[in-house]
């Protein structure tokens, strides 16, 4: 599955997307922590199908997933 990265997280990762395979959101979180150096030092949220999800949920691979650093609009 393709994970979109934004802002300072994309900068940190050096790319605006990652390809990973994860069966759950917690599994994805662990993979992202490994793939993006310093991610644990950045406040961030994960959006699944355009909604921020805090808990663990099953992922089927068809979701639209994005890793979002703090917002700065306005």
């Amino acid at each position, binding site marked *: 599955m393709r994970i979109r990265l934004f802002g300072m997280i994309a900068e940190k990762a050096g790319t605006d997307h990652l390809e990973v395979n994860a069966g759950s959101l917690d599994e994805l979180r662990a993979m992202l922590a490994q793939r993006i150096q310093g991610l644990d030092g950045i406040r961030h949220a994960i959006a699944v199908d355009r909604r921020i999800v805090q808990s663990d949920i099953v992922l089927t691979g068809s979701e639209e997933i994005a890793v979002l*650093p703090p*917002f700065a609009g306005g």
Partner: protein
Amino acid sequence: MNEHRHHKVKDIFLDGAIDPAFVGTSIAKHATRTDIGAHEIFLGQVRADEADGRRVAAIEYTAYREMALERMTVIREEAFGKWPEMTCLHVHHSLGIIKAGELCFMVFASAPHRSASREAVSWVVDRIKAELPIFGKEMLEQGGHEWKVNHG
């Protein structure tokens, strides 16, 4: 000017700064709506913030557009639910590099009376700052950059 009542997703984003003349044009479009008595407009301008010897020359805005537009549609519908007398709500946010002194954000509400438009603008601005996935890279005069973060 009644399309806001439908649940379609409007694009709030525009490339580059908001032209002050565009605000004037937006205002002028309401002259035919003679049920309007009050317009309230909030404009965000890029500030040459100074701290620790650094000075912001510009902000480069990016967004997770699809999610931002979905969130904005929800916020818009909630706003019309809270202030049913509101006649129009126009929101624009810049993407790309916006220099200090340029406008990057507009929230413009109109209503028969002042309280609805004033309260709606304040509430919509708060919601946008908190909920829309928009990211800002502060480009510093002396080179380098920092990431803007909205607080609270």
